[in-house]
């Protein structure tokens, strides 16, 4: 690990001015489960690290408000997963959290940090391989390499690395937003607008400016919460990244679908909302065939490689199965 300056920020203002003021590559440190790991691999080499875990008042879990669930950026994944209101009224959120990582990591990892988790692409994590995300212009080793686990949606000829997070998939389905702050001021953006597709600049992963800090996450309260699920298909049943996943939420009027949300994970370069699949269901009677059709539409536009082509059908089936699980909860 390269040497770095370590600063503890005791306030949001101190954190953002430390980030913006140094003029050197700086990183925010919260749970450290991604950053420390990548620093040890020399994939991340910040000159300065700003520890925000001692900032008071950023770890709240507020489910009482009329409009939205509000989570502080430092709320721990394990705490939000176990929150009784989140479990009861928004199972898609709880499941996206407890089906991620291990309890040790969930005890450390913050919600804000989790949103910014970087890809698990083995070529990105290993500096002996060319990687456009790590070193722009060097090439993508995954295109012709071992790419069984790589993305089929949102890919480019520069990068096919999967966005590995689970929570963001659920948040995109629920139209969540984040409040961020920098020395220039505060703003709110939709989680759906947070992550970028790789395009020709896979090194640019989010819409955040380098000195912006996520303060909180807002999830609009909705009838869509209760009949929801996060279905995660993995190579082993626990403690693994998704081979395919689906965040699904339904609002039913008897057997008729009044509203529906579908987002897929593990298959795309960013959290992937499946609008066409949703539109195919709204106003229709829920049937197995309709769910299967929505599954296929969710994977519309997939661009595969020989090793990962099987995940188009797997993804479609995952969405269809998630819809059935959500239907049973309506």
């Amino acid at each position, binding site marked *: *690990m390269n*040497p*770095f*300056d*370590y600063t*503890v920020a005791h306030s949001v203002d101190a954190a953002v001015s430390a980030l913006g003021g140094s003029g050197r590559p700086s990183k925010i*440190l919260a749970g*450290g*489960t991604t950053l*420390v*790991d990548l620093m*040890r691999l020399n994939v991340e080499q910040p000159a300065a*690290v700003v*520890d925000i*875990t001692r900032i008071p008042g950023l770890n709240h879990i507020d489910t009482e408000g009329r409009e939205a669930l509000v989570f502080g950026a430092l709320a721990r994944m*394990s705490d939000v997963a*176990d929150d009784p209101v989140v479990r009861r009224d928004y199972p898609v959120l709880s499941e996206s959290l*407890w089906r991620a*990582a*291990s*309890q*040790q*990591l969930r*005890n*450390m990892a913050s919600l804000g940090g989790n949103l910014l988790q970087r890809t698990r692409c083995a070529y990105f994590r290993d500096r002996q391989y060319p990687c456009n995300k790590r070193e722009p212009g060097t090439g993508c080793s995954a295109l012709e390499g071992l790419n069984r686990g790589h993305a089929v949606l949102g890919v480019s000829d520069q990068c096919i690395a999967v966005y590995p997070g689970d929570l963001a998939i659920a948040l995109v389905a629920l139209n969540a937003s984040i409040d961020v702050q920098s020395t220039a001021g505060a703003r709110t953006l939709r989680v759906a607008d947070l992550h970028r597709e790789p395009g020709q600049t896979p090194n640019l992963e989010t819409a955040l400016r380098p000195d912006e800090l996520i303060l909180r996450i807002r999830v609009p309260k909705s009838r869509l919460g209760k009949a929801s699920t996060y279905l995660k298909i993995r190579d082993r049943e*626990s*403690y693994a990244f998704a081979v395919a996943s689906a965040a699904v939420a339904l609002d039913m009027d008897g057997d008729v679908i009044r509203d529906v949300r579908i987002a897929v994970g593990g298959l795309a370069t960013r959290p992937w909302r499946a609008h066409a699949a949703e539109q195919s269901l709204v106003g229709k009677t829920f049937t197995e065939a309709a769910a299967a059709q929505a599954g296929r539409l969710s994977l519309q536009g997939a661009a595969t490689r020989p090793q990962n082509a099987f995940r188009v059908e797997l993804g479609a089936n995952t969405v269809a199965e998630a819809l059935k699980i959500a239907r049973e909860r309506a």
Partner: protein
Amino acid sequence: MINEDHLGLNRREVVAAGTAAAVLPANTAAAPPAEGGVVLQINGVGHDLGDLDPRSTLLDVLRERIGLSGAKKGCDHGQCGACTVHIDGRRVVSCLTLARQAEGRAVTTIEGIASADGRLHPMQQAFLDHDALQCGYCTPGQIMSAIACVKEGHAYKVDDIREYMSGNLCRCGAYVGIVAAIEQVVAQGRAV
């Protein structure tokens, strides 16, 4: 030849003696360290680590500076759970915890869970009762994780135990015994 058992020291402690951290009386840890020294509170004892390199992980400090080698280094990437310890009562992987982040917090390791009179923690006893290990390398992490698993309320069903213990890998495959040990502790309703 030094008879290490006779001295009550193990080889690691003898080797590490030259670089060991200063041990402070237990209740000095809360006070701010003099001249910026980093003080960690481990198993109720304060350890002054001086001007600690920010890169130091809690795991490396425990093992190499303090001589507590119970927490094991398996993968060093947060994937195996062998380094599991508690911080303020919650299980974490110490290999991805920068030591400075643990300052002012209560760190508990496998060395800190038996009673003062040497009686094993109920979870330690349950692991023995159920042969919940073979080589033993993952065991300190398993036990620290298991204690937390019960405390969190994630150990009332076998499926939950399997799910919430999945962050601790055992290459010997002692999982059946591990689950049985945890069930025993829950069934006994013993304080953990």
